[in-house]
């Protein structure tokens, strides 16, 4: 009954979208379409996300450098299988190459894992890991050479017993350590479970001491089964709010949520009186991007059926978060499979904006996959690669690019794994091997060719918040400005920390300005495209970074 109702709603929602984005795959886009070659096994990545109901959701991956070489390593959730750490041995532009590190995570943090987020929590030289689990969550303190130890006790962190599926972090003003937010799913022990029994979510601010102290959580009630959350400066106030996307499958009278998180005050939700409009979707993942560089971010919200693409409405003001959905007009609904005969609604999970073809426009990756065997939803539900078009819309290129595998995608990351300036793609699949796509360049009849220009930018600052979480990166070339944020959260149970990628199209140089987390603007930095740029707060010059070349590793 519930499923039927849901299906009906989805179909109704989707009907309006059919004429816009369906079958766009048939016409090759004018811009470059990347050739994404699946190389997981060749690259040494053999891993699956497995488990029963509790692991129908989750399946995340954290991509970050855990051994100080700046190459992105990976930790992938396993559900009932052990989570797995993969150390990156790739060389610049070479084949993707990883080594699985057995026992790389402490026992407790390797089982029952739904997702991971990387974060330098204690401001040392090593990135830490937040482990989302079915059961007690764990903070793993990073150490040398990809070593991790549980820090729950050291940081006075009670991991609880909930079924955690979402996470986000921010550094609030004058705080040495980050504020953490955990999103929880169904409270399986509550009466009437699973329906209408969503766990509360949790906001934990660091205690005012010299070491992280997370002893005092604030419960964010009501919880509506959050599957993704992100701290976002939605109104350019400099004070990030906490955006959550919630799964209507299990909540009652719930909706999407935006929590005001003012320093020193309890978080509270924006309400209808504030202009917040009720949106009910099967929220699975959040991707944020400032698509029009106006300082006001847009949000892609994955769901069953159509993806939402929300932009701030003209009626909104800095206190009124009024959003409208522009997914239809932008061609970003991705509501059912773009190839094959299965016309049922699809199921979206991880979402991430990035410029995968380096043409200067943001693209949108969406991991897709049936929850398990839901008959009213597409069984063959390939992941989407929506390329940003010249007129500000999106066009599907998943099939042309090679990512339309018959696997049930969940988490993922769009990251340059072999430091060649072209974004690669990792997708965690449910009950199927992880997909690892190496970006070979733009598709042509005679083989791949290089795509547009790019920059990759790493921010550093001394003291607290080493990785400048919350910073805004503005990259200006000619009249074009491209905006990126350093954020921890969003996606589906998956996070990335490290170089921030910016495609610059035909621009061979750019000026970068940083709005640091404390609100201070940097002077402009002049950089040449196709470089890895490291910017330290307060420095008047950048440094370039060069990845190891093949001959150096022989």
């Amino acid at each position, binding site marked *: 009954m519930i499923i039927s109702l849901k299906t009906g709603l989805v179909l109704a929602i989707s009907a309006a979208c059919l004429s816009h984005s369906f079958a766009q795959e048939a016409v090759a886009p*004018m*811009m*470059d379409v990347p050739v994404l070659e699946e190389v997981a096994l060749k690259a040494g990545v053999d891993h699956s996300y497995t488990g029963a109901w509790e692991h129908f959701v989750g399946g995340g991956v954290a991509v970050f450098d855990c051994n*100080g*070489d*700046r190459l992105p390593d990976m930790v992938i959730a396993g559900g009932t299988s052990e989570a797995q750490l993969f150390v990156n041995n790739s060389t610049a532009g070479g084949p993707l190459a990883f080594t699985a590190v057995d026992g790389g995570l402490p026992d407790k943090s390797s089982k029952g894992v739904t997702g991971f987020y990387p974060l330098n929590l204690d401001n040392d030289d090593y990135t830490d890991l937040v482990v989302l689990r079915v059961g007690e969550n764990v903070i793993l303190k990073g150490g040398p050479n990809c070593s991790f130890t549980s820090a729950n006790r050291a940081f006075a962190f009670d991991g609880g017993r909930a079924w955690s599926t979402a996470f986000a972090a921010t550094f609030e003003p004058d705080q040495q350590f980050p504020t953490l937010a955990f999103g929880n799913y169904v409270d399986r022990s509550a009466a009437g479970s699973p329906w209408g029994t969503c766990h509360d979510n949790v906001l934990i601010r660091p205690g005012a001491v010299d070491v992280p102290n997370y002893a005092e959580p604030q419960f964010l009630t009501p919880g509506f089964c959050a599957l993704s959350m992100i701290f976002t400066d939605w109104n350019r106030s400099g004070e990030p709010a906490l955006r959550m996307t919630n799964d209507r499958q299990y909540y009652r009278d719930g909706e999407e949520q935006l929590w005001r998180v003012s320093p020193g005050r309890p978080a509270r939700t924006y309400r209808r009186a504030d202009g917040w409009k009720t949106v009910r979707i099967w929220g699975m993942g959040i991707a944020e991007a400032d698509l029009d560089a106006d300082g006001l971010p847009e949000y892609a919200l994955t769901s069953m059926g159509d993806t939402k693409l929300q932009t701030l409405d003209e009626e909104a003001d800095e206190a009124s978060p009024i959003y409208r959905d522009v997914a239809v007009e932008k061609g970003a609904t991705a509501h059912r499979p773009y190839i094959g005969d299965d016309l049922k609604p699809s199921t979206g999970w991880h979402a991430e904006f990035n410029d995968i073809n*380096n*043409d200067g426009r943001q693209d949108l990756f969406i991991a897709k996959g049936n929850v398990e065997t839901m008959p009213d939803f597409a069984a063959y539900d390939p992941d989407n690669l929506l390329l940003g*078009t*010249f*007129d500000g819309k999106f066009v599907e290129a998943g099939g042309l690019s090679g990512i339309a595998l018959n696997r049930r995608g969940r988490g993922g990351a769009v990251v340059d794994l072999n430091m060649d300036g072209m974004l690669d793609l990792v997708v965690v699949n449910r009950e199927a091997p992880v997909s690892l796509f190496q970006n070979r360049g733009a598709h042509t009849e*005679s083989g791949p*060719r*290089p*795509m*547009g*220009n790019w920059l990759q930018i790493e921010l550093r600052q001394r003291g607290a918040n080493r990785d400048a979480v919350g910073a805004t990166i503005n990259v200006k*070339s*000619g*009249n*074009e400005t491209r905006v990126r944020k350093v954020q921890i959260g969003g996606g589906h149970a998956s996070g990335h920390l490290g170089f921030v990628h910016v495609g610059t*199209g*035909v*621009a*061979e*140089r750019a000026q970068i300005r940083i709005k640091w987390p404390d609100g201070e603007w940097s002077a402009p930095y*002049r*950089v*040449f*495209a*196709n*470089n890895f740029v*490291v910017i330290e707060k307060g420095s008047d*010059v*950048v*440094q*370039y*970074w*060069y*990845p*190891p*070349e093949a*001959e*150096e590793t022989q």
Partner: protein
Amino acid sequence: MQQLISRFTIPTVLAAVIFGTCLPLTVHAETPMPWSERAIFEHVDQSRFAGVLSKAELDELIAFGETLFGARFTTLDGGGRPMATQAIIPTKRKRAAPATFQRLAGLDSNSCASCHNDPVMGGAGDFAVNVFVSEGFNNADFDSTDPQFSNERNTNHLFGSGLVELLAREMSADLQGIRREALKLARKTGEEQRLRLVSKGIRFGWISAKPDGLVELKEIDGVDTDLVIRPFSQKGVMTSLRQFTVNALNHHHGMQPVERFGARWTGETDFDEDGKSDELTAGDVSALVAWQAALPPPGEMVPESTEWQKAAAQGGEIYQTIGCASCHVPALPLDSLAFHDPGPLDAAGTMRSTETHNGAIYDLELLNWAQELPRNEQGQIMVPLFGDLKRHKMTDRQIAAFGNELLSQRFVERDVFQTTELWGVGSTAPYGHRGDMISLDEAIRAHGGAGRDAREAYLDLEDADQTALIAYLKTLVIEP
């Protein structure tokens, strides 16, 4: 026009008919009416000119390039850009240009040869054909001639530019090799490595690499931080003839090459909305590059007057002793005359060697002038450019005439310029980046900053020695 038809279209078509197996030179060939106002009747098919070109193929391509260089583009060819600015990055105007021609924002000519014509086509230009660089007004849709929005530049000559680009490529490879070596050593030893950046005897400061792969850029001197020597324009900010050509075709003529303004990068085949799609092919640009790259280098002429000969000989020695040669280096060694087009250093938006299977190699050795180039003991060609392909600050507190621009350009400060190559200086008055110095003496006296010591040494010379130096410089000419 008639000449174009007779030289290319008809022979090509005839050859194709007669020999059957021959391929046409071009694509999109049309038979024009005798009174046609078009300047281009055919476009070069790049695939016809792939790999190492034979002498005949190279000559054919060069000839077409010469035709394009001299062509006066019309609206029928796609000349004009009513809805595109002159910016290097394809940029739309907010409203249609009020006039086709405009001295600052362009169009400012309808032929390359309109400005590059002194003493012959491909040469420099008088003050009357100064151009205005686009930095600072990418989105200009106004008709201001206020210099605060642009820098006024004199037209450079292009003779020997193929050799200049080859030198820049080899020097870039040297510098990047040093960076690679520093990184390799740093990673191997675990200690920071600081190496001198030097190529062909020209020093570009120092580079420091750390064991974690970070590179300090602070001590790099006279070259961009990516260690690409960009040898073209008075600032030294254009990487290649190809990049310069693509920029200029749009800026000056509103002729938009597909490789930057085509659908791949803009989503449109007629980005400037002048009713003409795909105005110039990759092959057309290649032809223009080939023609420019094949222009002979200026030489050192022997004056008929014995008195001038004597003075020039004396001036040549003075040139060395007072320090002119420290920057205006008489010759730099070049290893190879194989000119790859596309080249190895361009970025997306200018065709790259890695994105085509139809790249060509122009062996400049096949050209007559190449046989006359001097070589050193190692067999290297000694390119007599009288330059160092390095940027220098040209002003100081007392001498600041070269600091008369209001805007930096492409990251290069307003008073920093690449050393002007002096080959051809005897044929290309006026002087200075703005072309506002009438005599060589005046230009020498304007040297401040890095050129201050040589300037002072020049001022300390006896009048006869100053005259001798001028006599020497006047022997460096473009010989038609």
